[in-house]
């Protein structure tokens, strides 16, 4: 294959990738429900982890590492929300989901720097619990 032909193929492939990245992704109610459930699970996991740290069961490195991994989970979800377009009738659940997952990511960012501060961790746990309730309400809207 000549260099010219190879570069043409690359340009076409790259164009498809770029077009795919820039367009909105339609999301049906089942997919949205699945995303909300994942966010609820993440909120529950965060609360379990905070409880675990507050009881002094974790090592320093484990706590820092795990806090970052949970945060990255939330970041992946928030990274794609801008591109999601819900089915008609699911907009309000979508808004609740976006509000919830962004709020969760914010709390996880705070948690990462509060592992030594039990008071801050308690506040984060309370807020995450509220987010979890909102997400559960969003799930019931579908």
């Amino acid at each position, binding site marked *: 294959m000549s260099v010219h032909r190879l570069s043409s193929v690359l340009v076409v492939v790259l164009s498809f990738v770029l077009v795919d990245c820039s367009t909105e992704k339609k999301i049906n109610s089942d997919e949205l429900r699945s995303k909300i459930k994942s966010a609820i699970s993440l909120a529950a996991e965060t609360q379990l982890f905070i409880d675990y740290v507050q009881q002094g069961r974790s090592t320093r*490195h484990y706590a820092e590492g795990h806090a970052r991994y949970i945060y990255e989970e939330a970041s992946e979800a*928030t990274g794609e929300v801008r591109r999601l377009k819900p089915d008609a009738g699911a907009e309000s659940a979508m808004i609740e989901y*976006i509000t919830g997952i962004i709020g969760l990511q914010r709390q996880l960012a705070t948690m990462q720097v509060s592992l030594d501060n039990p008071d801050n961790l308690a506040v984060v746990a309370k807020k995450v619990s509220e987010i979890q309730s909102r997400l559960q309400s969003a799930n019931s809207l579908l």
Partner: protein
Amino acid sequence: MKKLLGITLGVMTALGGFVDLGQIVFTMQAGALFGYQLLWTIVLGTAGIIVYMEMCGRIAAVARQPVFAVVRTCLGFRLGLVTLVASNLLNLLTCAAELGGIAIVLHLLTGLPERFLLIASAIVLVSLILLLRFQWIERIFGLAGLMMIIFAVSALTLRPNWNEFAHGLLPIAFQPDLKQPVLYSYFAVGSFSALLMAYEVHFYSSGAIEEGWKSKDLGENFMVAALGSVLGAVLTMALLVLGALVFLPKGIFPDILSTTVEAGTLPFGRKAVILALCGMLATLSGAAIETGLSGGYNLCQFFHLAWGKNRPAKSVPKFTATWVGMFFLMRPPRQKRPSRACETVAGVERAQSRASRSGLYVSGSST
């Protein structure tokens, strides 16, 4: 004592196959979704792998034939080659995944960057394989993997419901109130097939030849295959029970490795976290070694090339190059920027602002 140490081949083989990176997370997910209802798949898979391992060990001991020499003889060159390519691709992917898991575990133990740990662990494992005789590799990683028993102790301490446990040992037809049958079937097939990973038997059969097993060792072959697999099954069941006890009631679907450590050490303190992480490190390392060496064994046995871990590396150059290649063929991902809280909060605010502009985010409604 020698016979006792001989069991370590079965222990390392089974632990590397049963409680590797994917299996640890997948089994806990199964427990988190379906409670005890998938325990029977572990029993079935264990019976299957004992028969498969014993059979391959027997052929290796009596006929001195490793698995891939038999594959070529029975399937012919073309079909055998397809099996070889598929098998080694799986080995390559699994080896890369295990190395990634090792880097995560080491990061949780030391706090050092994962990318550095990924490369360092590959170098250390390759050096250990080069330096140690086969028997010492299996002893070190087989025995160190026993630290995973902390997961079983944790499951027992959290008091499983033994009635439900016993009911979970009955197959699908006897399971009451089965929700999400398609998802259940997916997890049933996944749990069963994960116990029958091909690299386990390729490693085991080649290991039997490396150790010079003969017809008189057939009794030991059965004992090694059975005891190793039963130990692996007990640990796998413990992971499923932990998923059922810790995650199911809270509605958590664990999908990262570090979450599983939490369940395995919940009733205990910091020392248990270190023990669990060291156990994981040993089993993931064992799995990486199994898949890496299996890549070399498969290729050389199929093409009738010289092979053997206990032979000098220079006398088996293609074997050595293949298994070393298995550890370094996969490129580590690009380094992400380290997450700092100030950056992340700013990032969240930017995301909120974008969502707000698109009309999907109601400003000020964040908790």
